[in-house]
């Protein structure tokens, strides 16, 4: 348990901000806004991590997500039928199911968090968590760290292989189904909302 007035205020600010931003991701009708609300949510969690003294991780989270969310925004602009993203739009389906599932997930997890009795052993504030992490990564858990690194490398190669135009056996489109967009006429009004 960490207590102090300023920290508490900061905690409520960042957590409320993070949750509201997360909610707005799916409420906004602008692609770029959605991506950057998500970034705001991550930044809030990053700030909470810094408050919890996991400074390195919190900052790295922001660093990583700034890039990723920008790429996401560009991807959304790229893949949605829009004049280069100058006109945004919204689309939602199976709204009720999703809402119920979301509420259940929240209620279940929150219940566990509130009811379960977790040991109260706060971290020693005098230790430097960053150097702890560094020693852990390059000490006992080096194998885990290396595995993560190799996984990322494999991911990069795999992602390029999936996304590239030329596959091992010729062009990626070969033998593919006809484009879905041209397969059937566009649906009239009343797609699920």
């Amino acid at each position, binding site marked *: 348990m960490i207590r102090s007035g300023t920290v508490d205020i900061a905690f409520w600010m960042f957590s409320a901000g993070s949750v509201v931003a997360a909610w707005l991701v799916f409420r906004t009708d602008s692609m*770029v806004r959605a991506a*950057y609300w998500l970034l705001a949510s991550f930044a809030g969690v990053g700030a909470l991590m810094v408050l919890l003294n996991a*400074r390195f991780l919190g900052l790295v989270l922001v660093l990583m997500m700034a890039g990723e969310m920008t790429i996401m925004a560009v991807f959304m602009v790229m893949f949605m039928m829009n004049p*280069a993203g100058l006109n945004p739009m919204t689309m939602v389906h199976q709204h009720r199911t999703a809402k119920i599932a979301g509420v259940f997930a929240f209620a279940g997890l929150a219940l566990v968090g509130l009811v379960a009795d977790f040991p109260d052993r706060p971290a020693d504030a005098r230790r*430097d968590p960053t150097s702890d992490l560094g020693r852990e990564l390059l000490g006992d858990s080096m194998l885990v760290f290396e595995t993560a690194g190799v996984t990322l490398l494999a991911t990069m190669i795999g992602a390029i292989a999936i996304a590239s135009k030329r596959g091992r056996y010729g062009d990626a489109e070969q033998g593919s189904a006809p484009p879905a967009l041209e397969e059937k006429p566009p649906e009239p009004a009343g797609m699920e909302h």
Partner: protein
Amino acid sequence: MRWSSPLGAVVLVAGVLSAGAYVVAVLDVALGRLTAAGHLRLRHALRQPLDETALLLLTRPSRTERPDAQAWALAPALLGAMAAAAVATVPLGRGIAVADVADGIVLFGAAMAMVMVAVYLHGWSANSPMPLLGGYRFIALALSYEMPLALVLIAAALPAESLSVGAIVASQHDLWNVVRQPLGLPLYLIAGAGLAFWGPLDTADGPDLAGGTTAEVSGPSRVAWELARRFVLVAVAVMGAAVFLGGWQGPMLPGPAWMALKTLVLLAGLVWMAHRVARVRLERFVVVAWTVLIPLALVDVFVSGAIAL
């Protein structure tokens, strides 16, 4: 005054950033005039940035067709705030730092990553083609800047065995990093100039896009954006002076004076580069960044690591 107190922090950070931005503007006018006419009028150079700012403050901001107004207003604020966060981590003299935190270099890196968000947001939210293209261009290049920037900063942190900027400055007591890691500073300055879309790396706001992300802004919004952008440049120079040029350490003069001097040298270099080097070609620069700059930065990390062992 305690520099980490709210008032002290605002005074210090705002002071450094605005003084730096003014110096950049004066140097820019002076060097421009020196190149164009072969002589320089100091009074003119000292006054012109102020006059120009006054004019922009009197000019009304322009509207575009259905912009994302909030995001448009937020972008310069975000850009400036990131520059401020970056400067806050740097000690400007012995014990003069707003937040010489243990992970200062990481904070700087995170702030510089957010620059990408601010620039894209600014370009996108005007709802106009030229700014949008500027935003796209910045993203295309920013990923190539972030890598070498992060790598050379890691290399600079190695001899200090700490991520704190203060510790990195202290580790250069005997030998500056610019000597110890000769690859570091040039790579850092290229990446830093890119993040401030400055000079030859000014593809986001270039004249071939009629101003790019600034093509649709006028009046006070333009002041805000141009200031924020210069703040980033100043933040880059301040951090460069601390991490590669030994920070506030130096004989005779007091620490802050050394810091100011070193920052000034870097800023002058960056401004000179803007007047001297033609704007890069996007495609070619990305190729060079990934095939030359990033490998060089990796070499820098490996060599520095080997030496630090």
